[in-house]
């Protein structure tokens, strides 16, 4: 039992007043994708009109927190519905949840019994299946009633009728700065000077169009895979849980063998385990690439394959013979295959065994998903449903019942007890049922996928499902003490005809749930903005009114993006544009710190983003290997060109193990033990950045000076013989350009910031010249790159001699910039 209202009754009117304008900027009709909020300055408040409360504002301020207590049982498809209640509470996973709850309050809160709202009587335990929820004094009850009455009265009030309230000023990145940051975060090539000039002279609509074009970059597809792996966690390093039988065809299939033998040794790990491990992420990538409705990732009866994984789905004769003269990278290319899998078959061993495949359900039927979200004979896929609820419905199952669980007061199933529901606490004890009523029917979607990562098998005639689950799952012949609630969704039972294809049925239900679009937006928000969505604040938190306001604003924004996404055929690209053009991405500074909750400015770049940023700023990824520094950009990569073009990140090396270690050191995840990214720098992470920056800068200088000016991307317009004293102006102009490229700041050549950086250059130059130090670290010299010299002087320098002492000086400058806060954060 909790006492929320004792504080809310007092604070709510004040909070409501503050909230009004926060919400009033959005009248609910604007389309953030078509018309993103891109003003140079966010609305500055200010009106003498008295604030008024819309129904949504009232619900938010006075009821959002206490309704959290109700939603456990009164969630859609939840315990209360199971027991016959019609009252439904919507959480923030539903777009427009405040309006929905306002309507519910108006319907049930407006009914009076003995002079008191029925809803309040229920909350006090009168005629309430959930017992007493609130325990308050008469005065507090009266205050609550007043607020409830206000909410009821306000129902139908639109926000535009209310006056704005003060919230300060937000300065946004200008169009050039936005273009630069978007390119870096989205993994697009660094824009050219002409593109920056066009952005500066153009409109926000033109900028949005340019950002949309960034979503065609290969780096963006890497980002898509990364953001979805952050939640799906399928790209784990091991993959040992995958069904070994899938590999059997590879051992015997002649076409596969031809491909494997044709691959260089370095490439072997890739097609083997990695291919199946990456299948869900490649599936999502492919849906995005082909602009398919995003709902297909859960519901479509088609698979995404490359020539290796296709053998598992389509077997002999259905996968093309390899052209051994072809670049092997073609075999790795992923594609959508729309042949119905349930009509195909796969071969075991000599082919004596034959098993038809099940109907597919997007990523849900992939080995990697079922492996990462494996279950047990007693968990019965509930773990999977918890994951799906969180990822695709934006709802935490744990949040349904935040009360402590106490197994010790729940009578366990008695093996000698009666075989009825009374002996099944999941269904007979409300403490259990509050979650299980929501979770267990959905778990029925996995009824044909009982344990572990096994690829779902549809039986040939005369055979049975593994472990004989599907024939008993939630059926009368299953003992009542362990029987699951009937498979279904949101209170609607699964049709008998769908039981054999339960997972596609479930996937389709999830993909058509009103929460699905917003959950998708949330994943993109986390990746692009760099922070998760704000949670509903608690009244005890510092700065509660401001946090509540920020929460409401953000949910309104995200909800409207989600609605546009749904209306637009679930193409995810416009989500990206809406996010990039929003203040959450573009805020540069605020006049009132309390108005900045939820803004992503200053986010720490992920290791993968950092790797891509190295590429666009220094012209190359950082590579490491067992012998740090040299065995990189190997002949294998050179020979096979873009073979590894789909590299996960900039730290990939010959062995994924080293790559994984780097990602972990820099705050990334391994999808098994480390599953949450680190979002702030430590001393050790900074040292790792120093190492990668030093090494990459070292190589970049040598490589850049090994190219003619027109082919350079970093040290443009400077030559190695430009030294302090005689070429200060040229050097400062180059440094000024680097400041924008690396740090995102427009510092003029004559500025103090450029002078500081120039001083670093000058000091290194002087020191090296005084010491006559012309040696270059061997690790920095790449004889196989940068052979396209523009003059003999440069060639001499690149060949291993810092003839003018400037390479060392530039190394200092680039290392400084690549370890600056503004480089590692955006």
């Amino acid at each position, binding site marked *: 039992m909790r006492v929320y209202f004792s504080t809310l009754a007092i604070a709510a009117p004040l909070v409501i007043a503050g909230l009004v304008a926060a919400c009033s900027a959005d009248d609910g009709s604007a389309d953030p994708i078509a018309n993103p909020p891109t003003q140079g300055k966010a609305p500055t408040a200010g009106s003498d009109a008295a604030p008024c409360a819309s129904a949504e504002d009232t619900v938010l301020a006075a009821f959002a927190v206490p309704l959290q207590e109700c939603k456990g049982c009164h969630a859609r498809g939840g315990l209360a519905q199971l027991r016959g209640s019609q009252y439904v509470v919507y959480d923030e996973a539903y777009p427009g949840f405040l309006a929905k709850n306002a309507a519910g309050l108006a319907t049930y809160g407006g009914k009076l019994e003995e002079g008191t709202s029925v809803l309040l009587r229920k909350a006090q335990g009168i005629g309430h299946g959930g017992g007493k929820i609130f325990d308050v004094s008469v005065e507090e009850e009266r205050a609550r009633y007043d607020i409830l009455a206000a909410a009821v009265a306000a129902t139908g009030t639109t926000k535009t009728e209310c006056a704005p309230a003060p919230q300060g000023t937000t300065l946004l990145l200008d169009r050039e700065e936005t273009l630069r940051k978007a390119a870096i975060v989205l993994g697009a090539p660094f824009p050219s000077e002409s593109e920056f000039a066009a952005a500066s002279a153009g409109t926000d609509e033109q900028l949005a169009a340019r950002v949309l074009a960034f979503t065609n970059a290969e780096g963006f597809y890497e980002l898509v895979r990364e953001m979805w792996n952050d939640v799906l966690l399928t790209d784990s390093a091991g993959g040992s849980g995958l069904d070994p039988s899938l590999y059997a065809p590879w051992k015997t299939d002649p076409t596969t063998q031809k491909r494997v033998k044709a691959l260089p040794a370095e490439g072997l790990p890739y097609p083997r385990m990695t291919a199946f491990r990456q299948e869900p992420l490649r599936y999502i990538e492919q849906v995005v690439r082909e602009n398919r409705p995003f709902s297909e990732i859960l519901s479509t009866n088609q698979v995404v394959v490359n020539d290796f994984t296709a053998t598992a789905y389509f077997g002999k004769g259905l996968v093309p013979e390899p052209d051994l003269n072809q670049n092997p990278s073609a075999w790795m290319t992923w594609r959508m295959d729309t042949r119905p899998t349930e009509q195909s078959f796969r071969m075991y061993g000599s082919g004596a065994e034959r098993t038809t495949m099940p109907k597919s359900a997007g990523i849900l039927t992939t080995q990697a998903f079922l492996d990462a979200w494996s279950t047990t004979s007693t968990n019965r896929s509930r773990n999977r449903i918890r994951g799906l609820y969180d990822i695709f419905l934006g709802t935490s199952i744990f949040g349904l019942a935040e009360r402590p669980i106490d197994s010790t007061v729940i009578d366990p199933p008695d093996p000698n007890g009666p075989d009825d529901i009374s002996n099944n606490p999941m269904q007979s004890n409300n403490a259990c049922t509050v979650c299980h009523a929501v979770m267990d029917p959905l778990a029925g979607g996995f009824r044909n996928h009982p344990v572990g990562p096994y690829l779902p098998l549809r039986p040939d005639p005369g055979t049975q499902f593994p472990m004989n689950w599907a024939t008993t799952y939630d059926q009368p012949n299953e003992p009542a003490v362990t029987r699951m609630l009937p498979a279904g969704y949101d209170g609607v039972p699964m049709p008998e005809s769908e039981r054999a294809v339960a997972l596609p049925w479930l996937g389709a239900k999830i993909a058509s749930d009103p929460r699905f679009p917003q959950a998708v937006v949330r994943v993109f928000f986390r990746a692009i903005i760099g922070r998760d969505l704000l949670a509903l604040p608690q009244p005890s938190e510092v700065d509660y009114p401001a946090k509540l306001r920020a929460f409401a604003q953000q949910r309104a924004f995200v909800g409207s993006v989600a609605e546009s996404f749904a209306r637009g055929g679930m193409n995810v690209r416009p989500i990206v544009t809406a996010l990039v053009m929003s203040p959450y991405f573009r805020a540069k500074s605020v006049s009132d710190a309390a108005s900045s909750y939820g803004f992503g400015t200053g986010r720490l770049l992920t290791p993968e983003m950092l790797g891509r940023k190295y590429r666009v700023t220094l012209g190359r990824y950082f590579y490491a290997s067992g012998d740090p520094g040299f065995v990189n950009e190997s002949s294998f990569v050179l020979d096979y060109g873009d073979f590894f073009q789909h590299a996960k990140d900039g730290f990939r090396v010959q062995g994924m193990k080293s790559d994984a270690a780097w990602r972990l050191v820099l705050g990334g995840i391994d999808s098994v033990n*480390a599953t949450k990214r680190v979002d702030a720098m430590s001393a050790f992470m900074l040292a790792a950045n120093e190492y990668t920056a030093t090494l990459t800068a070292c190589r970049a200088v040598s490589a850049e000076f090994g190219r003619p000016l027109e082919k350079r991307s970093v040290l443009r317009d400077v030559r190695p013989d430009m030294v302090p004293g005689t070429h200060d102006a040229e050097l400062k102009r180059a440094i000024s350009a680097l400041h924008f490229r690396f740090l995102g700041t427009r510092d003029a050549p004559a500025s103090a910031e450029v002078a500081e950086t120039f001083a670093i250059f000058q000091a290194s130059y002087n020191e090296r010249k005084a010491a006559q130090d012309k040696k270059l670290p061997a690790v920095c010299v790449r004889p196989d790159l940068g052979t396209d010299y523009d003059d003999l002087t440069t060639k001499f320098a690149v060949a291993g001699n810092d003839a003018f002492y400037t390479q060392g000086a530039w190394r200092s400058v680039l290392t400084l910039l690549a370890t600056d806060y503004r480089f590692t954060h955006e």
Partner: protein
Amino acid sequence: MNRRRFLQMGALAGASLFGLRSREALAADPSAYGGQFFLQIQARGAWDVTFLCDGKRGKLNASGAPLFSAVSQRSGYVTQAGNDPLLFQTNPPTGSPLVLDSPGRFFDDFADRLLVVNGLDFETNNHSSGIQASSCGDRIGELPTLAALFAGANETRRQAPVAFLAGGQYNVTGDVVGVSRVFGGVTAAVADPYSLGSASAQYTKDSLSASEVDRIRELRRKRAEALVGGTRIENKERTLSTFVSATRGNQYVVAVKRALDLAGAHSESGALPPAFVKVAPGTFTRTGANAVAKQVTASVTNGLETILQCFKAGVAVSANFEANQFGTFDSHGGHDTLQKTAMGGLLAHLRYLFTRADELGISHRLNVLVISDFGRTPYYVGSGGSERGTEHWNIGSAMLAGPIAAARRSVGATDDRLRAHLVSVKDPTKTLPVDSTTGESVASLAKVSPNAAAALKEFTHPGTGDIYVRPRVSHLHRSMRKALGIIAERPDFDVKFRLPYDKHDLKLV
């Protein structure tokens, strides 16, 4: 932290540290840290504490046979007695099982340094929530892990470059300290980042000179400090603050290299502390013919040696570590086999930790918390004799060692149904069973049914007026925050990261 405060701290640090020119000289500094350390070891998957520190008379194994010959107060803990019928062992695919330990042997050897807390309520039976609750004391709010709080509280006095060594699943810091994940091959390069280090002489030349490095670091720090407060955007100020802290500590990272070199060399040698080997002769070896034994030895030494050496060198203050290298504790099937193997692995790690810390001379400064996600049901589920499993149970145990733990002591208790006794707020060594046929119990005193008594989390004794509460994991964490000096050092942490159920403090530690 506001700008003024960390500029002051930077100035203080600069007087003693930034003035040093040699990176080797800088490297020597962290070893001056003379405070305590904290290490949390997670028995991930939910252990069965009746196999270790909360044994039960009459408990049957999965096949229905007695698990123990008897139960006694052996070495001060309730565990099995007799000739160690409960042996923790590996279960290799081929060959004979390798006995690693037994609860009797373990407590005989280490009771003098252990405090056991039984009957601890984790209030959840979900792994994610349980790992969070055991790490931070709150199953709902993502508070900083205890190890992070301890490192953060100490960082105000000491710039340990890898103050908090992260491990396992839950490493939330609340930005009180940075996260350091240390890996052998990568760390060697990171520890001396400007050398572009390599074992090969061909690549040993530094990319930048020491003076160049100093200039870069100084300007980088200055620029970061100048940015503080400039945007007023909450997220940027947060990440900027941690970045500035990192610029102060990262120059000592070179000192980590020495610790890791020592750890690597020691692990490679396979040397085990004599006290460790004495207990289980022949079990652990790096050189023998027994492949399983070699694997076990390598697993035990590799992870912990790095942490111990970082503590010894003063470059780390706290760490989280997960001991699941021997398989899972999550025994929904094959419970007895899985628990014995996982428990054997856990105790092997603890043996190594304690005996090696003795060798390194840091035992008197090393605090250890051994805890799991929660407990397991006192009954088996499923069918199939030895294949039967157990389910999740919100009541479990914890073990502590180190200067803050009163040795050879246990607090809290459970009944045979593994229900937690209530604990006296005034004197946590006094417990009150919820239901008992003999003596006082909540049910008899309150004259309520056993089920109603079991549901009570707080009870006032009608005779003495003493308040009894069910010990929760949040109580343990608050008690440890106090014992570790976190609250004394940083009272703001206890306010900002408030634990639930703080109406009553239980002095469990």
